[in-house]
């Protein structure tokens, strides 16, 4: 479920004001290994202070993109610009970045404090100031008493926080995180998500977060860049990605969705089997389409005799299955061409419908997502 920290209008007004400059720009970024193209012509602009996610399944190229941004992998083509400087040909140690690894990569032969101090030593910061800043960084991640410990003495979550402190203490202008929470258990992941988000907000560092977990991406970030097969498919706010996906892959990958096959009719109409549905955007008449509708955007109520609002989608059906999933009821409703699933939060009241009930489903045309087949 989308956890929005602020409310958005239907059009998804972005939180970030448009006057803020871009801090990280990837221009037609490409990576080829022999004949295989791992990242293809990627264009991305991240604003100063923004927290964005690179979201996608394994092999989509998100980690490679991050590593190219860090300088650990040379780009086959394109440009990388950080803070206005073209860093494409620069090695990692000349880029103003902080990197947090999936396996933390804390130096095992150094103490926690020495780990955190390493980046400062590389920048020839005087000893006294190093000690001060290391203490500050450890305080930031709430690990002050652990300075003298070795990494192997710490738990996974603690190691992750040390890795974060080590990357932040050097005050980089760009923070890169490569699936940092993947090795943590679910509870810890949730805690760390909030912690990382809070720290990022406090420090205002431009941040890129690679993940395959859509809940992470949607709940932490200002904008999400969805990647698949080496390409950037959509870059938008969590609301836009979830509610207004521009590609069937996203509608499928992010969140749960109902799928129907159909044909585009006149503008604003789609035929799915015997049903005629209203949609906000439709491809040319006659195109084969896939229709997707989010389960939680459908209202469900007992069948009424009252005439339906013609401007919205209203269909009747019979419930074939009900499922209780803790925070939701899921109703599978047979509406003719196929079955759609409708979700209602359990907080809205006890289970209202049972198997076999005749019900009415209603949803807005803007929630009928229509994608042309073969697009």
């Amino acid at each position, binding site marked *: 479920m989308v956890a929005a920290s602020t409310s958005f209008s239907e059009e998804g007004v972005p939180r970030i004001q448009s006057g803020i400059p871009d801090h990280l720009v990837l221009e037609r970024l490409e990576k080829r290994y022999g004949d295989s193209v791992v990242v293809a012509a990627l264009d991305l602009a991240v604003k100063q202070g923004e927290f964005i996610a690179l979201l996608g399944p394994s092999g989509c190229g998100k980690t490679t993109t991050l590593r190219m941004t860090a300088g650990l992998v040379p780009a086959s083509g394109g440009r990388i610009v950080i803070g206005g400087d073209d860093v494409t040909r620069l090695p*990692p140690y000349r880029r103003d970045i902080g990197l947090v690894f999936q396996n933390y990569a804390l130096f095992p032969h150094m103490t926690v404090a020495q780990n955190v101090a390493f980046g400062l030593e590389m920048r020839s910061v005087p000893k006294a100031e190093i000690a001060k800043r290391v203490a500050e960084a450890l305080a930031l991640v709430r690990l002050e008493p652990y300075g003298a410990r070795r990494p192997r003495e710490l738990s996974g979550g603690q190691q992750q926080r040390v890795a974060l402190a080590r990357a932040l203490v050097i005050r980089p202008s760009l923070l890169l995180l490569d699936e940092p929470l993947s090795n943590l258990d679910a509870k810890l992941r949730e805690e760390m998500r909030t912690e990382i988000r809070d720290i990022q907000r406090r420090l205002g560092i431009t941040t890129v977060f690679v993940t395959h977990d859509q809940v992470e991406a949607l709940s932490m970030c200002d904008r999400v860049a969805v990647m698949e097969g080496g390409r950037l498919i959509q870059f938008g706010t969590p609301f836009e990605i979830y509610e207004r996906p521009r590609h069937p892959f996203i509608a499928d990958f992010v969140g749960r969705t109902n799928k129907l096959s159909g044909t585009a009719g006149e503008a604003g109409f789609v035929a799915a089997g015997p049903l005629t549905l209203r949609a906000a955007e439709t491809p040319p008449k006659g195109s084969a389409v896939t229709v997707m509708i989010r389960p939680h955007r459908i209202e469900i109520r007992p069948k009424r005799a009252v005439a339906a609002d013609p401007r919205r989608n209203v269909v009747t059906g019979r419930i074939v299955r009900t499922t209780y999933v803790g925070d939701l009821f899921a109703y599978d409703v047979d509406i003719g061409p196929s079955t759609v699933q409708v979700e209602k939060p359990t907080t809205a009241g006890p289970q209202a419908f049972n198997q076999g009930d005749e019900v009415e489903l209603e949803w807005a045309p803007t929630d009928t997502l229509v994608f042309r087949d073969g697009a």
Partner: protein
Amino acid sequence: MEIGRNSWGFTALVVVLFCFLLAPVVLVFPISFSNDSFLIFPPRSWGVKYYLALPSRPALMAAFQNSLLIAATVTALSLVIAVPASYALTRLEFRGRDYLASLFTAPLLLPTIVLGLAILLVFVRAGLLATFPGIVLAHLTITLPYALRVLATALTTLPASIEDAAASLGAPPFTVFRRVTLPMMTPGIVAASALSFLVSFDEVVISLFVVGPRLSTFPVEMFRYVETRTDPLIAAASVVLILGTIGCVLALERSIGLMGALGKRA
């Protein structure tokens, strides 16, 4: 720069170092085809003079035959002795097992120069000097630890549950060993044989102490020859040795796979 790929400079350096590492073994080949009377590089004349000369050097030929015979005997004995020993050390529980395992591997810890002298002292007393049994015994002292190591590894990677299954089906212990354990140990046995043979055949320092004028080994005679003369004859002999070794290893690889020989699972 990319961490995964090495820079061209580093790769070039490593190539040079590999050449240094393999130089002696490789350069022996061209010299063996030299027809010069001395060791000159590059050779002034080419031919197979020294290959042809090998059979007509009685001392070398006799030593070659001796080495083959000794190595074969040592290999057979190593297996007969080490197979039961490795079984006892891996499958049976008894007090002092680990100490014994260390003791039996200990000969490898002594430098061969010291072990050679020590064995000489005992052999003089026991009248084993310059005798066939004596040399075999001396070689066994160092081949057994190797054979033991290889066979023990082979046995520990063998799941004991298969033997338990055979036993539970009614097979008495020796039958289990003969029909189940031994066949499964075959890769290890083949590897141990090859290793024992090569170690015995190439053994030179200890052999120097225990051979005699009428009973010598091939490496010892090669050593004696090189000490006094510098001509390409030993190059030809070396090539024969190297090719023989390669043949041995290839046969090993073909029959059981090299990784199988080292006791690793694929």
